[in-house]
Structure formats: structure tokens, C-alpha cells
């Protein structure tokens, strides 16, 4: 009981700030103690994971629709912002994903540090990122959410800019400026919501209640809500990224070091889609109904555009990056339907994309390390030279194209299906058209992914690498990859693992939209 009491009060905060504490400890350790530094970083991330697992084990899954482990403490009273954290069924899968990915990234880094090496700075950045990502998923106060949402910017900027590829400086500043532009409009929207609800609290629950009250009284113009939603749309839409704000993504993903790409793909993009559900849809449901057809349109454009972009790529990593645009399109399509079915699919899609695309970037990183190139036409015959890695790549590609039985299927297929029957008040014909377009997108996805696999893994090694000895999967790679591969399989066979956690929250949300539309 005592133990539970401790977890209830401190569990989430400890989980969020333990990596930051680890980063502070690392600052005091001299640069030459590389081994110690790696151990501290791993320890901090595993410690955070241990606390997180204890919290998740104690989580009441029957009541997943309610916020749990809520802590509500004074923070910056003058601006009415409080330190409110808590998790519900929507946060749990994403917190779990983050807790898994960061330690694996640190393990993968063990002897894969990109140039200019410097494990100390690199791992400190990873830990700061970890705190920012976890904090975003547990914050229940808009200002706290905003702070955590922005904390991830700086470490990612430096990770791309210092440890990235040839065009790293351009990619880093592009990523930074794009995201900050969205954030500036987003904070203005947050303030506007705050003031239209009476200017008393930044708690998301209070704000949603405030907007609902004013809607019930009928004294809040729909156009105001639509405008406020627009500001949030810019902030989250750039992060996702949605077409046409996606242009930072191929540059950032391609130029980032492997670890950066993995974190970007696996978790950072989810901050945007999570924000859509947690903040924009939750607080402004009426405006969401107005926006939904447009979000759906941009989502399907993203699906097709991303797929066509993939077909035009000559670089393996850039191809995977463009495939993210397409996959996030499916997630956004699920969200745009405003049904519990679509929203559940969206959350599943986030986790699945995190695992699968994260794995693809890991493999791409290892391929690059061995061949010193990712140009598709120079590669080939991976299955001959490094069969295990080749098969892992094949497995991930199958998962990514949505093969039933693997995780990717449960994100894409229900999202497409949900568009057949969108939420009340949404134009059915439009969404059914979207459904058809999205389905075409899956065919294109199969096309570019299989094409990638065929060109890189089949055939015989190209002449320049024919006589070279290529190492197969290393021990650290096995440790980092096996949990992700296993999860892709497990989630594919038993998707209920996530659906049953998210369903209570999404049912409640779906009911809200249903009530609005009828």
C-alpha cells in the first residue's frame, strides 16, 4: 500500500525526470570515462523504464478511460499554470513505446557512435530528449505540455547538426525553424483558448469543460473555435508532419545520425498526432468537426504524395523517410474520421509505425556503417553477404507494407476501414473517396517497399562490394533489435494488447463526436 502510495504521488514525475538527473550526473563525469558515461546513460534510461513499468503495472486497465496517477501541484500560479501530470489509455501505449525505444537506442549506440564521436554529449542529448518526450505524453496542463513539447527541439537540433550527414547544418536549422514557427502559432492558440474559457486554468480537462460550457450556452462563435483550432493545427501538423508542411522531414531524417532518425521516427512524430487527439480534438470538438474533412484530405494527399516520393528516391534512408509521410497520413486519416474506431486505429498506427520505421532506420544505419553508402543502385545481395540482416530488413518491410499478422496491418487497415463510416456530421461520400485513395496508397506502399527490398537484398552483391567481408548482425544490434522485432510480431498477432487499453478513452471521445453530430 505504501509502495502504491509512493507510485501514485511520485511515479510519473520520477519517470520523467530520472533521465534529466542522469544527464546532469553525466555532465560532471569527465569526457574520457567513456564506459562509465555509457553505463550512467543506460542506467538512467533503464531506471526511468523500471519506474515506468511499475506505474504501468499498477495502472487500472479497467478504468483506462480516466486519468490516473494524477498529480496536481502549484507551478507558475501567476499565469495560472499548474504542474499537472497523469496518464490514461491514450498515454499508456506511447509512454511504453518511449520507455522502450530510448534504452534500445543507447544500447545500439554502445559502439556505433557517429562522427565526431563524443559519447558524453551525444548521450546527454538522448537523455534530455527522453525527458521531453515522456513529459509531453504525461502533461495534462497546456503550458506544461508546451514546455515539454519544445524541450525536444534543442537536443534534436544538435543531434542532427553535429552528428548528422553531409547536409546536416541545413537540415538541422530547417527542422528547427519549421517546428518553432508552428509552436509560435500554437502558443497563441493555447492562450486564446485560455481566455475564451474565462482565463482561470490551463488544465486540459478544465479547458475542455470551459469550451463545452460556453458551447452549451451558445455564446462562443464557431468561427472563433475554428480559428483557434487552426493555430493548433499548424503546431501539430508541422510536427506530424502533414502535407504540405512535411518538407523538413526527409532532410532531417536523412541527415540525422541513425539514433536520431530512430527517435525522430519512433517517438517525435507521435508528439504531433498525440497532440491532435489529446489537445485539439479533446478541447475543441466542434471545431474538429469543421476541420475533419480538410485534415482527411491532407492526410490522403500525404499518403499518395509520400508513396510517389518514395518511388522517386535513390537513397534508402530518404525512401524510408518519405514512407513516414505516407504512414503518418494513415494515422491522420484515422483521426480525421472522429470515430472511436478510427482513433483506436490511429493510436495503434502510431505505435506500429514507431516500432517498424524505427527498426527500418536501425537497419539502414547498420547497412550504411558496413557499405558506407545507402544508394540503392550500389547495394544488392544483402541476403548473401549478411543473411540475418537481410531477413530482418525483409521482416520489417513486410510489416511496413501492412502484411496481416504483423503490427503494421492493424494501424493501416482499420484506419482505411473507419473512413467508410466517418463520425456523425461528416460528409460520407468524401470520406469514402478518401478510403479508396488510401487503399491505392497501400498498393503503392507495397510497390516501393518490395522494390527497395528487391534492389538491396536480392541478387548478387555489386562488383565494388563483391570481395568485401560484410559483418552480419552484431551483439549490440541483436540486443537493440530483438525486443522491437518481437513486439512487431506480438502486436500483429494479438493487437488487442493496445486496442483494449486505448478503447475506453476513444469510445468516450467517439461518443462526444457522435453527440455533437446528431
Amino acid at each position, binding site marked *: 500500500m505504501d509502495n502504491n502510495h509512493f507510485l501514485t504521488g511520485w511515479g510519473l514525475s520520477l519517470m520523467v525526470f530520472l533521465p534529466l538527473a542522469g544527464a546532469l550526473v553525466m555532465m560532471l563525469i569527465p569526457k574520457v570515462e567513456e564506459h562509465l558515461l555509457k553505463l550512467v546513460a543506460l542506467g538512467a534510461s533503464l531506471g526511468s523504464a523500471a519506474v515506468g513499468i511499475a506505474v504501468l503495472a499498477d495502472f487500472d486497465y479497467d478504468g483506462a478511460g480516466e486519468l490516473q496517477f494524477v498529480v496536481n501541484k502549484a507551478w507558475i500560479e501567476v499565469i495560472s499554470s499548474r504542474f499537472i501530470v497523469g496518464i490514461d489509455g491514450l498515454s499508456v501505449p506511447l509512454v511504453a513505446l518511449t520507455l522502450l525505444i530510448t534504452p534500445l537506442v543507447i544500447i545500439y549506440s554502445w559502439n556505433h557512435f557517429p562522427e565526431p564521436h563524443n559519447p558524453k554529449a551525444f548521450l546527454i542529448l538522448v537523455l534530455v530528449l527522453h525527458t521531453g518526450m515522456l513529459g509531453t505524453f504525461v502533461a495534462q496542463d497546456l503550458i506544461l505540455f508546451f514546455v515539454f513539447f519544445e524541450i525536444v527541439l*534543442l537536443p534534436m537540433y544538435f543531434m542532427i547538426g553535429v552528428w548528422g550527414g553531409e547536409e546536416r547544418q541545413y537540415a538541422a*536549422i530547417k527542422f528547427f525553424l519549421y517546428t518553432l514557427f508552428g509552436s509560435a502559432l500554437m502558443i497563441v492558440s493555447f492562450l486564446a483558448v485560455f481566455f475564451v474559457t474565462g482565463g482561470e486554468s490551463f488544465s486540459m480537462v478544465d479547458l475542455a469543460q470551459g469550451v463545452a460550457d460556453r458551447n452549451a450556452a451558445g455564446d462562443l462563435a464557431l468561427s472563433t473555435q475554428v480559428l483557434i483550432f487552426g493555430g493548433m493545427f499548424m503546431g501539430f501538423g508541422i510536427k506530424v508532419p502533414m502535407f504540405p508542411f512535411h518538407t523538413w522531414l526527409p532532410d532531417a531524417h536523412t541527415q540525422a545520425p541513425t539514433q536520431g532518425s530512430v527517435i525522430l521516427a519512433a517517438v517525435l512524430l507521435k508528439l504531433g498526432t498525440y497532440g491532435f487527439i489529446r489537445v485539439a480534438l479533446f478541447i475543441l470538438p466542434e471545431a474538429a468537426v469543421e476541420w475533419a474533412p480538410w485534415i482527411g484530405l491532407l492526410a490522403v494527399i500525404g499518403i499518395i504524395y509520400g508513396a510517389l516520393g518514395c518511388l522517386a528516391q535513390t537513397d534508402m534512408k530518404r525512401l524510408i523517410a518519405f514512407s513516414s509521410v505516407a504512414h503518418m497520413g494513415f494515422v491522420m486519416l484515422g483521426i480525421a474520421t472522429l470515430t472511436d474506431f478510427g482513433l483506436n486505429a490511429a493510436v495503434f498506427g502510431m505505435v506500429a509505425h514507431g516500432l517498424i520505421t524505427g527498426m527500418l532506420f536501425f537497419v539502414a544505419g547498420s547497412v550504411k556503417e558496413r557499405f558506407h553508402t545507402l544508394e540503392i543502385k550500389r547495394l544488392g545481395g544483402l541476403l548473401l553477404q549478411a543473411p540475418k540482416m537481410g531477413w530482418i530488413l525483409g521482416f520489417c518491410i513486410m510489416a511496413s507494407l501492412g502484411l496481416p499478422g504483423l503490427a503494421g496491418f492493424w494501424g493501416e487497415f482499420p484506419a482505411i476501414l473507419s473512413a467508410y463510416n466517418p463520425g456523425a456530421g461528416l460528409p460520407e461520400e468524401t470520406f469514402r473517396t478518401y478510403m479508396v485513395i488510401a487503399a491505392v496508397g497501400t498498393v503503392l506502399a507495397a510497390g516501393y517497399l518490395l522494390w527497395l527490398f528487391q534492389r538491396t537484398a536480392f541478387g548478387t552483391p555489386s562488383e565494388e562490394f563483391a570481395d568485401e567481408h560484410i559483418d552480419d548482425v552484431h551483439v549490440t544490434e541483436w540486443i537493440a533489435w530483438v525486443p522491437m522485432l518481437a513486439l512487431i510480431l506480438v502486436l500483429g498477432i494479438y493487437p488487442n494488447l493496445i486496442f483494449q487499453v486505448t478503447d475506453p478513452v476513444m469510445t468516450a471521445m467517439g461518443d462526444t463526436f457522435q453527440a455533437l453530430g446528431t
Partner: protein
Amino acid sequence: MLAFLLQQGTPFLEPKVDFHALAPEIVLVGAIVVVLLADLFTPESSRGIVPSIAGIGLLAATVPVLTLALDGVDRAMFGGAYAVDNFSLVLKAMFLLAGYVVVLLSTNYIAEGDYAEGEYYFLLLSSILGMTVMASSRDLVSIFVALELLSIPAYMLAGWRKRDLRGNEAGVKYYLMGVFASAVMLYGMSLLFGLTGSTLLADIGAAVAGPDTTPFITLGIVLVVIGFGFKVSAVPFHTWAPDTYEGAPTPITAFLAVSSKAAGFVALLQLILIAFPARHDVVEPLMWLLAALTMTVGNLIALRQTNIVRLLAYSGVAQAGFMLAPLAVVGTNPAGAGRAVITYLLIYTAMNLGAFAVVLAVARKTRSAEISSWGGLFEYAPGLTVLMTVFLFSLAGIPPLGGWLAKFVVFRALLQPDLTAGGVTLAVVVGVNSVIALYYYANIAKEMWMKPVPDGDRTPVRVPFSLSAALAISVVVTVAFGVSNLATRFGDLALFVST
């Protein structure tokens, strides 16, 4: 005869002097005297004692500020011309602590250069004394006296590198522009006095609210505001700033960019909130225009700078624009605007002093202020690089560093409950400018983290103790302001209008 005259005139009323209320200034005057004497009577070899005395004097002066704050009683003297309340106490504490950091920045710079040391600290303390007086001035005359007390020593300090042509230019330019601004302001003040019959801000406030307003009052208000526009380097009155900043000794540049600018804002706040609250029809459009121009022009010119001191000068111009912005809605939201300006000032002081401290530390090795000389700093001075990164991104307004809260309170003031067209449009201008500003701040970060060392010289930078102390103070305050409610609490305490 004399006795007769005395009998005829009104009896001399001895002004009530509250020595407790004046204690911070008295301690400071004492420190100034001791600094002068110490310089006179200590041998050349032990001059190192002078900065220590100056620093201790500044810290000692914060003690009565604390006791006054704990006492919690608002005091007014000289018929209301001099007030000691929470507003003045918070700002006095800020000026004293910022002054202390400037002394820390100066210690090695002045001792190692070919400079007169005793006089330097004497003038610096005098200028700080003027600022503490400014925080209490509620009368046109005392405001003007405080302004000259803080400006005249600053003119001399700006030209302290007297064997350097740029130093001469810095001093002369600053002096001429400053005197010109004083003249404009005095003309405005005399108009206000002539039309309202009083120099007390509160009386002027009551008089200009009356029904019979003449356009000359408007002229008076505009001229006074323009006078302080020079002080806070608002566009188009900013032209002195970059040249003066570049030519002055770097610690003085920090002093001008932070303390002197803050003093201008303090005076503006008192004038706008006490003397002109009824005339927001004049103040608001004027401030809107000044703020939008200042931040946009400052940022656009900053984009092209290659010298870090000039870059910080223009970034300081842009930051002044952010601070002016809330005053554009002062009519509908005086409390919010006042709070935003004070909070911004507190945070800006910490982060900008920190940035200058790093510039000073790095220049000790590179002997240059060109941004290109900062290449690869991370390789040989990781600590300084991380600190500079903190200060730069705080200036850019990235959470969780202090600057984000400063920007946030500005947004909050502009988007007050009853949205005004002026407020919303200015908020968008602030938002766009924040993104532009990020570009040049990130550019310096790029140079430090991602570029190679230009001359291959990787010897570590030796940071003297006093600079390390200044850096430590700045970084702790910058981060603490960002993640806690300290700055906003002070901003709230300091609010002396309750509407």
C-alpha cells in the same frame, strides 16, 4: 536684516527624510566614496582591491532593499516625488545585482588592460546609483536628475578605451545622441509642466485626464516618450547603439545593453502607468508603432551581422521591441502590460549578461569578436559552449529556459481577455519575429557546435574566477526563471497599478 528676510518668507519646512527608505542609496554613496579613497591611498600593486570594494558595496546595498521589502510598507517622500514601494524595490534589487555582475565582468578586463581602474568603478557605481534613484522617481524633476546621474558616467565609460578610435567614436556618438535625447525630453517635460502646473507624475496624471486637453499635451507626451526611446534604443532612435556597443569596453557594452536599457524602461513604465494612463489614445498607437518597428528592424539587421557584439547589440534592439509590445495594450490591460514588461526585464537582464560574459571569456583566447572566430568552440571549451547555448536559446525563447516565459507573458498581455485588433496583430508580429530571431541565435550555435576550429588552436580557454562567478549567477537565474514562478512573482509584486 537676514532675520527680517527670514521672517518675511514662508517658514522653512524641513523635508521629512526617511533614512531607512534611502538606505540603499546611502550605502551606495558610501561605497562610491570608499572606492575613490581606496584608489587614492593604495599602492599601484594592490589595486585589485578596488573591484572587490565596489562589488561588496553593491551587495551591501541590497541588504536595506531586503529589509525594506520585509517591512512591506510603501513609503513616499518629498511630497510624493520619491517613492519606495515593491515596484522600486524589485527594480533596485535588479539594478544592484546586475551591477554586481557587471563588476565581476569588468574585474579582469579592466585590470589587464591599460585603463584607469579606480575611476572606472567610481563611475560605474555612480551610474548604478542613478538607476536605483530612477526606480523611485515619481516626479519629472527627479526622473530627469536620475537620468542624467546614470547617463553622464555612462558617456565617459563608453569612451573608456581612449587610445582606440572606435572607443572615441563610441563615447562621442553616445554622448551626442544622449544629450540630444535629453533636450527633446526636457522640452516635452517643460510642455507638460507648463500645461498641467505640476511636475509630480500623479498630478500630471490627474490633469491630463481632464476635459480640456490641448494638442500640446499630446506633443509633450510624444516628446518625452521619444526621449526615452533613445535610452531603450527603440527604432528609429537606435542608431547609436551598434557603434557604441562595438567601441565600448565589453563589460560596459553589457552594462549599457542591460542596466541602462532597463532604466529607460523603468522610467517609461512610471510615466505611462502613472502620468499618462488617461491618454492611452496617444500612447497605444505610438507604442504599437515603436514596438513593431523596433523588433522587425532590429531582427532584420541582426541577421546580417558577423561581429558578435554588434549582433548582440541588434538583438538587444529587437528584444527592446518585445518589451515595448505590451505597452501597446496598456489602456485596456495596464496591469498585464506592466507585469509583462517587468518580468521580461528581469529575465532579459539575466540572459543577456550571461551572453556577454561568455563573449568576454571567449575573447580572452581568440582576441576577436568575429563570429567566425568562434568555430569549433565546443571542441576546446565545451562548458562555455553549453552556457552560451543556454543563453542564446533563452534569448530566442525556447522552453524551458527563461526567455520563453518572457515571451509568454508578452503574448499573454497582448491577447488579454477582451481581444483588441492592435493586440492580436502585434502578437502575430511578435511571433514572426521570434522565428526570425531564432535563425541568427542558432547561427552562433551552429558556429560553436558544428564548424571546425578556424586556426586549429585548441588550447582550452582559461576563465578567471570572477567571470566564472558571473556565468554561474547568470545561468542559474536564467534557468530558474524559466522553470519556476520566480520571475512572474516578482513581476506581480512590482505592480503598482491595481486596475
